């Protein structure tokens, strides 16, 4: 089939040219196409998968809320000023973490320590406020599968989603404490502070959506 041969030859050439281009690019092998150190890449991949966990939880919440109807009015039940303060604290702690990471890169050891401790303090304040909120909610009669305001899914989604996030904050406080301790003993590089920072910002990021979807909408 002469027609096909004629057609194939330029195709092959184009293919070889493509291959050359790939081999010359960062995807050619022998180097990281992402240009980041592997621990940082692993943290990013973990955060992507963790995002999908929360996406699953929040989508499930959205579907339930839309299809069940008669959702209680959150403004009557939650204290928006308390939740607003919690949001404020978490945003501030994210900002102090960003400063700690920048200080680590710049080599300012004392500033890293100061801002890491401020970030941990913010996390502890947030957890305290959440414990207070849960205590109030439970005193008013909310349980995992029942609550006095109507459909049981209201308190179920609240406890599961904020609990999951609170667990992440708790883990983050422990992670940051270990990071601060190891930094003070000069056992870790600035990169480790940056990776801990990525995790902490992620916790803040998830809260943005929980705050919006569970409390405000």
């Amino acid at each position: 089939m002469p027609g096909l041969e004629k057609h194939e030859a330029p195709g092959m050439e184009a293919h070889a040219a493509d291959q050359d281009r790939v081999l010359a690019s960062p995807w050619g092998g022998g180097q990281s196409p992402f240009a980041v150190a592997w621990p940082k890449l692993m943290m990013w991949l973990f955060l992507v998968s963790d995002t999908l966990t929360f996406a699953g939880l929040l989508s499930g919440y959205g579907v339930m809320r839309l299809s069940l109807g008669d959702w209680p009015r959150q403004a009557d039940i939650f204290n928006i000023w308390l939740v607003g303060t919690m949001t404020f604290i978490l945003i501030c702690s994210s900002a102090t973490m960003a400063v700690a990471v920048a200080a680590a890169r710049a080599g300012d050891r004392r500033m890293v320590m100061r801002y890491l401790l401020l970030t941990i303090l913010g996390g502890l304040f947030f957890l305290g406020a959440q414990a207070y909120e849960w205590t109030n909610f439970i005193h008013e009669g909310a349980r995992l599968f029942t609550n006095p305001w109507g459909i049981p899914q209201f308190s179920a989604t609240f406890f599961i989603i904020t609990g999951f996030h609170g667990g992440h904050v708790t883990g983050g406080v422990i992670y940051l404490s270990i990071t601060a301790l190891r930094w003070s003993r000069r056992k870790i590089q600035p990169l480790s502070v940056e990776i801990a920072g990525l995790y902490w910002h992620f916790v803040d990021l998830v809260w943005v959506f929980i705050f919006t979807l569970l409390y405000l909408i």
Partner: protein
Amino acid sequence: MTDEQQAEHTEHKTGGYKIYVVVWFWLLVFTVIEVGVVLFRVPQWVLVSSLLILAMMKAALIIAYFMHLRYERLSLVYTVITPLLLGFVLFGALGPDALHVFFSR
């Protein structure tokens, strides 16, 4: 000059810690607007759409500046952002069913 040095260089040029103060400020402004939208009773569709847009803007600020994704290579940016679209796919798969129930009530 490696890419990481380049990123650091860009960061220094943009003024060290100042960018974090600016991002922090806007995150707070968006939060105040969010609470304001809830307190001033607006129509439900305005409330839901404005809150979702504000949440996405806050998320974009955090990812781009606090998590430095803006200074990373595009291949990493795509790797991180593409799976997030799966969240929309997930709701796209589940949403019609829930919305049908919602609108037939």
